[in-house]
């Protein structure tokens, strides 16, 4: 996060990281980015949201001043070295919100670009137009969390007034970059907005992969009932006609993590879900970005060529 110093806004704890380790890209999750590739997962501390169900509250809701002694102190070249040593194809920021650590990420992004290592991130998308342009200069693939639409939901569960900036930023990023979207569903809170969210995403780009998460009740919601899987699956019926790639997961054993051809519905990529950041590639049928049965294109970002394909 930031503080004011001599009329400038500065980062309080630059180059301090809460995490730095190798993971499979499906676990982030990115389902349409170089399947099975390895990424270096990094994160910092704090967030601009106060989600009641935060899975990483011990980092995201903690004052970095308290947490900083537990964090890695790694300069950009250290992170690049770690990525190389761990044979990672990319660097992905995914623990908390990247917008709270922009200066460090700008430096890291420059170093990664010089080394030819692409960067991606998870973000809540709640930031100014200026900030989103900075993130777009650092990252080449995004998973934006669209948590809900109504003001009531956003005030009660997230601590923000409106989702409008998030939708605006998804639209902006999807124009030039690979974007996937994630929505944790809470029964009785935002599950009534499934079709409206699908409409919004479809209007932006029907090929945006949408990760619908079964909420894992953590933090302030720990102890509350887990959402009903069958009910949510049924509620997604209409949305599946609107978007080409809808996944329903964040629980172990999910049956809705495979990529199917939008045209003939043949399975082109199989995955296994362990829930809560544990998804894995099982197998790619054919070559991944083409349907093995009918040859139709499958949206896929190839990190080697680093560009959106099949749009």
């Amino acid at each position: 996060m930031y503080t004011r110093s001599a009329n400038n806004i500065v980062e309080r704890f630059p180059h301090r990281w809460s995490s730095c380790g190798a993971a499979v890209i499906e676990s982030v999750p990115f389902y349409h980015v170089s399947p099975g590739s390895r990424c270096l997962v990094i994160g910092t501390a704090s967030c601009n949201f106060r989600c009641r169900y935060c899975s990483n509250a011990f980092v995201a809701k903690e004052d970095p001043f308290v947490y900083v002694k537990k964090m890695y102190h790694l300069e950009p070249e250290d992170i690049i070295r770690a990525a190389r040593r761990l044979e990672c194809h990319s660097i992905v920021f995914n623990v908390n919100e990247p917008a709270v650590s922009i200066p460090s990420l700008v430096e890291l992004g420059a170093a990664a670009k010089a080394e030819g290592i692409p960067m991606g991130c998870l973000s809540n998308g709640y930031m100014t137009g200026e900030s989103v342009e900075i993130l777009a200069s650092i990252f080449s693939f995004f998973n934006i969390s669209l948590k809900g639409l109504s003001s009531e939901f956003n005030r009660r569960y997230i601590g923000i007034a409106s989702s409008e900036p998030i939708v605006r930023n998804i639209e902006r990023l999807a124009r030039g970059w690979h974007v996937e979207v994630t929505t944790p569903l809470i029964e009785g809170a935002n599950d009534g907005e499934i079709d409206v969210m699908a409409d919004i995403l479809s209007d932006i780009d029907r090929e945006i992969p949408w990760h619908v998460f079964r909420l894992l009740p953590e933090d302030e919601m720990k102890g509350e009932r887990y959402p009903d899987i069958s009910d949510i699956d049924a509620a997604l019926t209409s949305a599946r006609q609107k978007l080409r790639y809808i996944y329903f997961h964040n629980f172990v054993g999910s049956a809705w993590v495979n990529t199917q051809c939008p045209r003939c519905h043949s399975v082109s990529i199989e995955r296994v879900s362990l829930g809560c950041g544990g998804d894995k590639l099982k197998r790619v049928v054919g070559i991944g970005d083409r349907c093995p049965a009918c040859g139709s294109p499958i949206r896929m970002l190839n990190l080697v060529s680093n560009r959106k394909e099949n749009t």
Partner: protein
Amino acid sequence: MSTAIIDARGWQNCFDLRTGDEAEIVGPVCEMVKAVLAGHPYPGDTDFTSNRWVTDTALDLIGRYEPRFVFLTYAQQYFSGRYESMAEGARKDMISRAFGEVERFADASGFAPIIVGTGDMTPVTGIVDLTGLEGLAICTHWSTRYTGLFDATKKDLAFLEGHPGIEGYMPWSEVLSTFGETDRKDARLPEYLLMSRKGYAFRTVGILMKVPVMIPSTNYHIPVYAPGSDAMNITGIRGLIEESLHENKTALIVMEGVGCDDFLWPYRSFGNGKDWFYYEPSEAQYMTITSGRHRFIDFPSGNKYFDVDDRRRDYPFSGIFKSAPQGSFADTFPGKSIAVGNKSMFMHMVTGVDISVECFARNLYNQGTMAVVRRENKV
């Protein structure tokens, strides 16, 4: 085929354990196990009813399957103090209640218990930060005693020699020779194995974000309750089980995070390793207990775990395992056998039993439960 039945709280799905492919299952044993899972949703690793869940689930499964051998793990006291400070009184009370669950199980089931504590816990007093090394240090998962070091430089070794939290480091070839091996080739294995002193944990890239406050102590010895036994080492526990089963239905009960200081039943102190080496609570410790021989080399700390984690591999629901280990006592036990535990998703691999029921919690995030049915032909 071994079948994995996953219960994600209110919803179940079945898989071929090896391939991870969805599978349609039929048969009385699997149907019975599905009913057990549905009736016992897992409360969570640190929930105050977590150990009670073990007892309740085991008694239910015993009532339906009638096994002769039972393997139980109670781990609530291990997880609860790992990342959040507990007052000493609260910890002792939790351990007392864990033993209360053991007693409840033994009374209700009539099984003869053999109880093993995996070792004492100790507060973290320091961190050995290895992120500045020129070589690559890998600390696997929850280990705090051992770390692997790859491509070490002289400067790295000088740093290790001067660090108060480092007890020593050993070339991997010497680690191998400790366990009677000489020529195992595996690119995942480190050049050196580092050992921390009591109270120290390692910081390397790839470790969990949560920083522990209580970690396994210097457990060269562990407590074992086994009346009449004269065994002295962890490798002798398997023999105790076999001996007991001649006369009794027998339960091997593992108490995680409980060592000689806190063990509440009469016990004998067993060696928990070999020479300079002792086991941390881990897959290797379990496999050594169930197979009767040292298994650290099969499941070594500090290896490049990610080399096998991000490509297609077998046993996707089985944690670190990429193949089914052999040699567990229950693999060849002709009687019926079950396991129930709240430690992690590896009991089905290390116990070798017919049916296992375990929590499916990853880094304390509660996903539900998983049962594995390895054999249905004993009904």
